[in-house]
């Protein structure tokens, strides 16, 4: 990678930031989590998740990931452990009831990108003016879109668009999905929470990403745009130019 930008903002309507992110340029691992749950528990879930993944990656550098299967073999044990931990924290303390988090991980290894997700935080690859969504949301509306009940446009305005169907710590079983994408020079990997894509339509995201600005500046502009559109949720973005 040649450039990295990241920004996390609590938005305009929320009192706290339940998003967390972590970048590990040396290992080529990038993580975003968006916590859910009452009180401080969402924040705890997302922070616990990113720091536990970071700790895992630091002590077991990702070597030998060459396809989806090896990516899964590498990340799944760690995600399962975090899942158990959050689930236990949620069971044990009443103030943590319902605590869980989404997570999206991007791992860059040469000309390949590997991705894992649970929930509705996303990974995209931006190439030559086109933005391609890599991960599939685990959300109620996406299930409806996939089964052809509603259109993508309807999904944007659906009353339950924030409802997620899978989350880390939400269920004893942890079933993340894994993806891979080929990368070319100049591609930008975008990881983000729903605070970004829920506010900013794809054309506007593309317009900002096409500006030729530095990744840091692109991240700032994306967050700024989300806040201009209302900033209803926390917004977190990581941009990695390869």
């Amino acid at each position: 990678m040649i450039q990295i930008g990241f920004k996390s903002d609590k938005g305009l309507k929320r009192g706290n930031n339940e998003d967390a992110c972590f970048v590990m340029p040396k290992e080529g691992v990038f993580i975003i989590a968006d916590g859910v749950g009452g009180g401080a528990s969402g924040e705890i879930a997302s922070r616990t998740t990113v720091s536990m993944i970071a700790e895992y990656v630091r002590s077991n550098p990702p070597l030998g990931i060459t396809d989806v299967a090896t990516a899964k073999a590498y990340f799944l044990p760690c995600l399962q452990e975090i899942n158990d931990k959050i689930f236990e924290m949620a069971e044990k303390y009443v103030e943590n009831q319902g605590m869980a988090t989404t997570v999206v991980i991007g791992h860059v290894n040469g000309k390949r990108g590997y991705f894992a997700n649970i929930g509705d935080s996303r990974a995209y690859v931006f190439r030559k003016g086109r933005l391609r969504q890599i991960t599939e949301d685990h959300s109620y509306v996406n299930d409806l879109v996939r089964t052809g009940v509603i259109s993508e446009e309807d999904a944007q305005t659906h009353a339950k668009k924030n409802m997620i169907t899978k989350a880390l710590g939400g269920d004893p079983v942890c079933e993340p999905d894994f993806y891979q994408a080929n990368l070319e020079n100049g591609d930008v990997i975008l990881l983000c929470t729903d605070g970004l894509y829920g506010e900013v339509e794809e054309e506007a995201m593309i317009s900002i990403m096409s500006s030729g600005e530095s990744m840091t500046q692109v991240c700032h502009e994306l967050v700024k745009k989300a806040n201009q559109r209302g900033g209803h949720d926390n917004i977190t973005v990581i941009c990695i130019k390869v």
Partner: protein
Amino acid sequence: MSSRILAGRYELLERIGDGGMAVVYKARCRLLNRYVAIKILKPEFIKDLKFIDNFKRESQAAASLSHPNIVNIFDVGKEGNIHYIVMELVEGQVLSELIKNKGPMEWRQAVEIMKQMASALSLAHKNHIIHRDVKPQNILITEDGVPKLADFGIAKAVNASTLVGATGTVMGSVHYFSPEQARGGYVDEKSDIYSLGIVLYELLTGRVPFDGENPVNVALMHINEEMTPPSQLVNGIPPQLEQVVMKATKKYQTERYSNADEMLEALENVEHIHSILGKLIYTGTRQEGAGSPDMGGQDHFLENPGEENHKKGGMKSDKAKDTGGNQKKRWTQSKTVAILLALIIALPLSFGIYQLISNGGVGAKEFEMPDYTGMLLEEVEAMAGESGLQVETGDIVYSDEHEEGRVVSQTPAPTTKVKEGGTVTVNLSRGSREGTVPNIISKTYQDAVFFLEKYGYKVGSVSYENANQPEGLVLRQSPTGGEEAAPGSFVNFVVSLGVSESQAIVPLLVGMTELDATEALQAVNLTLGDVTIEKNDTVAEGLIFWQSQGADTVVQGGTSINVKISGVPEDPNASYSIPLYVDFTQASNEVFYLTIVISDESGTHNVLSNAQRAKSDGGGTVTLSGVGEGTVAVIFDTTEVARYQVNFRTGELF
């Protein structure tokens, strides 16, 4: 005693319910000396300001409704961070419990409940309040058997807010969702009618029509699947009543009862028709398995697949059926046929009369929807006002035909039959779609000019700068590729001059240690400038998380690059905010006063002073801040329950 008083007048007596969002208490209002129910929002909901706002607004709207079948709301308020609603206390049972314990309900009893619910919805709808969450869990049955609908509009507050639980209590009511709610479509009064139809189905059969493994399955079933008619599950449901269920639960809003009054009317007709038709058909018949006890006398219902024919079909089929049927059961056959004939003629007539009355006089006027296409919003509003229609603005769309601000399309479409008081949604034009600027980044200057001209744009100001791109390639453009701009307008762009020998390309320093960064910079003839240590959550401690010149930018050789490293700054004046979780379960009273006192190097100060808290909330987090080291005391009422050592310089609490 005083610790159990809310807002100076409500004495909390006992906890009577615990819902997804709130805890309900029985309370006594000291001012009016009556018993009330008080719903207190759970603490996890009070952080979401939008939710609170919606919750309050919707509850206040519902408070304006006064109806014997609606749970009255007396007061909405907040004390400290306790948000509450004071409601009429209904002592009795929740309908869902009743169904669970007793199974299917005798149809007359179900009709009785439904009539009262339809009447309640009618009043709410006339006041433009949509319930959005009609379900047996929201219908309370008093000890005298009077049903009351509760929780008006709270579903809207939940939906509109961004609150999400992974396990989602909100999903609970998906069994009663209308297809449009499942789709996220336009929800109106008819969505309540659908849900009420589902409740009726459940009352009659003891089960919901659609059930599946997960909410999405159930939602899909509401949208796509036909329901099993109740009569196939339970014997003895009058066909007229089944028709009410089927009509209320039509997939399309337009096919349902157009309002709650119409549904009420149909329910009243069920009894009316049954009192004439039912007795005659079933007189003298005895059939086992009809089960439910009878209010009317000795007539038992006969499962009769031909029932539909009595109303829909002609006399012929009835006759054929009757003669071919069981003679023993038809001892009043000739009389039945004669009266049926009279009814078949009379029924459509009386319905016709009813239609006339409802269309012409007292009821809402029905007329053809005018065509508003091409008009300005003001004009539409003026015209619609005359016809008694509400105007809503829908989407702003591109249109080649209509100028900006004029109506492109409308729902309902022109000439559709509509009623006074209805709503028309108009989509307005944002003018014709402009051209799309081509992306010229990374193209050569010549190609860029070619593309711009091909797309009908002009070359604007062109500037040059050094960059880490081969000389002659476009670096940036304005407007950017993909943006809309009128054809013929100028596009400015910046062209690379490449990197001159005296220049350097800044490397990516983020993620490096200070030592690695120094080496990386030296390698390209740059130097490390100021190094600041700052707290940062996104990059591991000891690594750079910010650099003054972005990676890949071109700078003069010898430039120094400032960086920030993630870490704990050594600042003697550092002051951490420390969260402290206070466990309320040790409190001796339900409502108690919480005081938190910090003694530190700046003296003694109170974080909270006699703040009211509810024990049943379980606990809460308080943020402590102060100077240097000290102690924190947690006091419930007048008793100290915990004491901690605290260090605000390091953030430690033990």
